[in-house]
């Protein structure tokens, strides 16, 4: 009984963990560079939700001064931190997508498997060029 209560009363953190694992799994397992970035976004968003639920004080209101001394406010600091983190996340995604565009231009593929086989050919090619010199 107490286990069920624990789970139900902390459902927000359980959701965070599920999102976090899903995102991390996509980043690690997926071959496609864009899907990896999507996974990274999910992973980062889960951390944002984690912070936002940390700031919630039970029965607290929005942190705007009401004048009465016994108002309970939610903690605004984690929310402010996450505003910064969202900006950072957007910048990371934008740079990642720009790199994917450049990779597609340079290699005609954004699949990790194809690129790995290409890379080996590339480096072998470089050594052949060197060897033909001697």
């Amino acid at each position: 009984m107490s286990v069920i209560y624990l789970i139900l009363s902390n459902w927000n953190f359980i959701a965070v963990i599920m999102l976090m694992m899903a995102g991390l799994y996509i980043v690690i397992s997926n071959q496609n560079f864009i899907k990896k970035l999507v996974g990274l976004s999910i992973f980062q968003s889960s951390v944002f939700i984690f912070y936002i639920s940390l700031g919630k004080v039970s029965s607290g209101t929005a942190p705007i001064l009401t004048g009465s001394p016994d108002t309970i406010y939610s903690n605004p600091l984690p929310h402010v931190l996450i505003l910064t983190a969202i900006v950072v996340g957007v910048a990371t995604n934008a740079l990642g997508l720009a790199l994917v565009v450049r990779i597609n231009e340079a290699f005609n593929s954004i699949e990790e498997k194809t690129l790995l086989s290409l890379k080996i050919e590339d480096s072998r090619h470089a050594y052949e060029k060197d060897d033909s010199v001697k």
Partner: protein
Amino acid sequence: MLIFNNIPALLVAIPLLVSAVVSIISSARIAWILTFSTTLVCLFMAFELIDIVSSKQTLTYAFGGWEPPWGIAFIVDSVNVYLILLVAFISVIATIYAYTMLAREIAAEDLSKAYAVWLLTIASLFGLSMTGDAFNLFVFLEISALSSVTLIALGAGQDRRALIAAYNYLIIGAIGATFYVIGVGYLYAATGTLNLVNIIERLNELGTNQAAITGLAFMLAGIMVKAGIFPVHIWLPAAYSYAPSAVSSFLSAVATKVAIYYFARLLFGIFINITQLIDFFLLYVLMPVSVIAIFYGTIAAIYQTDIKRLFALSSIAQIGYITFAFSLNSHSGISAGFIHIVNHALIKGALFMAVGIFAVGIGKRATMVSLRGVGRQMPITFAGFVIAGLALIGVPLTAGFISKLYLFKAIFETGNVFFVAVIAISSALSVLYLWKIFEVMWLQEPAQPLKIEKEPTVAYISLWLMVITIAIFGIYSHGVSSSGMLAANALVGSR
């Protein structure tokens, strides 16, 4: 004076503002002049900081007058003041080096924008080494990651694989940074503060707290990714070997070092308070991992034929030496680690500079095949390269010897013969790969007459500035070694 009171803020603000100006300038020459003068100003301010810290011990700069723990604070004490000087010094020399080398390796229209990103990297490294706020550190961590990813991707003009290396660094770095943020969240939930000094006080009041321990574990894991510590180093070899040479010499010299400094600060500033776990972590996690890193990096470097990748792999081994020194958990171990941070930054920076000059000279990637006989054609660079290489092994009269000396001193204090063998054998193994390069470059005949391009004089100057510094620090070692001692004193007290 107003300016001197605000040095910690200005060290970040000036490169940041100049970077915005440089990004809209189209002339590469003016962009370089602005960048160079900015780094000179930063070097001057770093010397000023040393003056202030040696008289005042700890300088706390509260942004906007909001005293910590409420506001964001920059802390400058004996632990990081020499790191700031190191970053400032290497950024001056690397900027001199970039003058000719970046122009040869990336497209002319990208040059001024590259300098803008270069300045952004410098600003973020200063921020990383000064900030006393756990979340603020994450912001600087991401600025430094995004700007160094951009700089690494600029290597695509030479070799398109730079793009994939940059992408992998971005993804792995972002995962590392997110781990760090998760950790900060846990620590904030446990202590209710983000200020590093305040966190320590609250943790002492709390005693053992599961959330705080979990948070610290996440933070350490995230920082380990950025520092290139062994099991999570995988982004490092590709990123440093495909980046333009100016970028790889600058980043390999200081970017990982700043992360290692923060790793040490977390470890010995905060984590040390959780007494039941710190010994376990140092003895059963950090020490074995460092020993594996030392051997993995060295042996992988022996079998590597691409010279830039070889030195990137050897960086992993050298970072292993630093974390190994930390894992001894003694005053002399920590000071040995900080001494090696400074010395390895100089040595690896110089080596990457020399390899860059060779690659420009022969007009293709530096490999064991393409470098045959190049040493005799480019003797000035080769001489600098050999001195830096000897320093990497730890030959007397070079800075590397001082590092090894203090490392041995720390090991003898533990009285464990096995560790002496680890350092001795790995040093002997590093002779193997360096000798291989020296032999190829000096003794072997080139396959066909070499056409050496006109050598970039400015790049020589910066290489030799580094080499001379290595030699000076090898002979007059007092400055570096006392800086390491002072850092250890400030971190763990003079026990």
